[in-house]
């Protein structure tokens, strides 16, 4: 069977093309002057620059973490360019008609048409290309509802008080090495504000594209859902196929005020490197949300790309009765390495969290789930349920589970279930005997394995995720 699976997993990366777009790119290297330049280009308020510089100095004192179950050569932070933007963006196009058609074509090729009439109805998109936001669609419609959805650089101009109030409030500047770096050099990302009692009328989505060589992408997303509001947000990511590794160190902060709900979904398909582990994105991301009284934060992620993934979308369940959820599918193949999971920090009473993690390993890859469930002393009646399943395809890959449970409240209940299974010869044989080829069979078995997570994705994207998995599995059967 292994041979067949290997062949089936031997897929191509469809988003691996490069767009010929004239860019303004900083020379590589990082020091205070680079940070000042980024801040000046974005015409930021003084406090933002100071915040960046403080982060930078803190970062200089910090050590790169090495506890994750991943292995990669040392990153030379001076060899990275910290800013790159299409030249055509300099004059700030007022509408889509003024945007460089090559940029629009890039997104079209990725299946993200930015002309509103061609888009999926009901999804507003912020397209981030290297270090800048290219376009944000459906703004008028969102404005009618009082929803703010714009690039964070624009939010700093238009709503500086809102940004100042919440930025760093969930992921502090010095939270960790990569968060500190991001705080110093972040270039763009999305800002969302949903007013009190408002149900956001459409799905919001940010599509991140790395295009330039030797650049890092450091975006920052901040979503604030005011009391009693609801928003569903999706991010997607791709990058060209290159032999060099590229760094992506993002920070996402979610604030769900009392009775608010935030649903955050990710379909991550950064270039994973070739079968020998050459090239690919280092995806070192800090994502965290804070849920106030009766609020709910739900993370759903489908991770199929990146050479190395280091990512733990987390929930701080601060308010009583708040709810945190984490649904994850992480697929690794070739030489990919993933160390991903979540943290559920139960602070308030009767807080509830659910973790469903599905790890699929194929080829020579390594896939680790790392999760922390922490029950604080005030978290009376708190509950957690964790289910952590691993599926192995072939016999050269690894699946690892590192669950951490800390309970300082005797009334809290923590449940953990874990399984490891293989795509068996028998399952494949049954499918083939019923006329299905190996690839179809494997993708069906894997999709079945992931079903609990896929049903959490917004409908349009559940189909996409299934397809993505299918492409990712091409040639992986053995």
């Amino acid at each position, binding site marked *: 069977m292994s041979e067949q699976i290997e062949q089936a997993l031997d897929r191509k990366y469809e988003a691996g093309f490069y767009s010929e777009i004239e860019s303004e790119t900083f020379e590589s290297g990082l020091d205070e002057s680079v940070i000042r330049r980024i801040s000046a280009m974005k015409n930021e308020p003084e406090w933002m620059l100071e915040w960046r510089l403080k982060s930078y100095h803190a970062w200089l004192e910090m050590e790169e973490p090495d506890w994750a179950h991943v292995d990669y050569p040392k990153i030379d932070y001076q060899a990275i360019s910290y800013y790159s933007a299409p030249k055509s963006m300099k004059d700030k196009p007022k509408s889509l008609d003024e945007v460089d058609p090559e940029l629009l074509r890039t997104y079209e090729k990725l299946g993200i048409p930015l002309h509103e009439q061609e888009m999926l109805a009901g999804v507003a998109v912020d397209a981030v290309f290297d270090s800048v936001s290219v376009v944000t669609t459906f703004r008028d419609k969102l404005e009618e509802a009082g929803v703010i959805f714009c690039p964070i650089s624009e939010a700093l101009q238009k709503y500086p008080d809102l940004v100042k109030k919440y930025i760093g409030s969930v992921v502090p500047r010095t939270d960790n090495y990569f968060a500190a770096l991001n705080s110093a050099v972040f270039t763009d990302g999305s800002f969302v504000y949903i007013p009190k009692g408002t149900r956001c009328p459409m799905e919001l989505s940010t599509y991140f594209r790395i295009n330039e060589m030797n650049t890092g992408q450091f975006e920052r997303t901040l979503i604030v859902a005011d009391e009693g509001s609801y928003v569903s947000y999706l991010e997607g990511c791709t990058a060209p196929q290159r032999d060099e590794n590229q760094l992506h160190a993002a920070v996402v902060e979610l604030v769900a005020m009392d009775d608010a709900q935030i649903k955050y979904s990710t379909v991550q398909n950064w270039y994973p490197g070739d079968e020998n582990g050459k090239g690919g994105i280092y995806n070192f991301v800090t994502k965290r949300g804070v849920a106030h009284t009766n609020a709910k934060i739900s993370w759903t992620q489908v991770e199929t790309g990146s050479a190395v993934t280091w990512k733990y979308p987390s929930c701080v369940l601060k308010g009583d009765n708040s709810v945190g959820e984490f649904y994850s599918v992480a697929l690794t193949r070739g030489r990919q390495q993933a160390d991903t999971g979540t943290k559920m920090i139960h602070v308030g009473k009767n807080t509830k969290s659910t973790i469903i993690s599905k790890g699929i390993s194929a080829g020579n890859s390594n896939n680790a789930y790392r999760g922390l469930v922490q029950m604080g002393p005030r978290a009376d009646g708190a509950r957690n349920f964790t289910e952590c399943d691993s599926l192995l395809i072939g016999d050269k890959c690894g699946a690892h589970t590192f669950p951490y449970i800390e309970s300082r409240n005797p009334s809290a209940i923590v449940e953990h279930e874990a399984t490891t299974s293989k795509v068996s010869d028998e399952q494949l044989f049954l499918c*083939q005997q019923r006329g299905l*080829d190996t690839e179809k069979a494997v993708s069906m*078995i894997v999709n079945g394995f*992931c079903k609990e997570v896929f049903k959490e994705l917004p409908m349009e994207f559940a189909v996409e995720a299934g397809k993505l998995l299918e492409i990712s599995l091409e040639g992986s059967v053995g």
Partner: protein
Amino acid sequence: MLSIKNLHASVEEKNIIKGLNLEVKPGEVHAIMGPNGAGKSTLGYVLSGREGYEVSDGEVSLNGKDLLELEVEERAREGLFLAFQYPVEIPGVSNMEFMKESVNAMREQRGEEPLTAAEFLKKAKEACKQVQLPLDFLKRGVNEGFSGGEKKRNEIMQMILLEPKLCILDESDSGLDVDALQVVADGVNSQRDGERSFIVVTHYQRLLDYIKPDFVHILADGKIVKSGDASLALEVEKSGYAFLGKAYEEAEA
């Protein structure tokens, strides 16, 4: 329909099938009986092309095509169906999705348009009723949490939906009570149309009271050692396999 000539096959380098000959014509039902370890299940796996079952000699053709040249799924699409003795579970994949893909793979082979979800559902419901499984079985994961009897009936349902040319039933009677046996047999009999052929592999004569075979073959030590009509099965029922004498002793050894 099916022609097997001097078939030799091994599993993990152990010879199991040792020179087997069999001709099955359209519409015929052949029962294959034999003691444990005679190679009955192996024959089904070899014909369907399961990995690990190596053919070292002989020829097998299905409707004139060299079966041994084809992949497992190609054989299936040529109309070869194997009802498993112990069907495996595929968690999270609904029976419905699974069968729809499967039926459409067969239709594609025959140059027919794929069925729409509604068309398929209609057929699937009928098949479900025919084997007396509740309709919610269509939504459940393939064999997930099914009882032994439910799995067997589910196999027959798949057979009905796939409309194969040659059906190999691998001990579809094992572990069934009389009522379930009747359901399975009715399902099979409903598919006898004078064209479709069956190979019914069984340890006991009992099933053959319900599915009347045209021929009965006794398989021992990898070969067909005796062939006859339905009365041969009754003989086995009465006096066991002792009449096999030397061949039987070898098989048991």
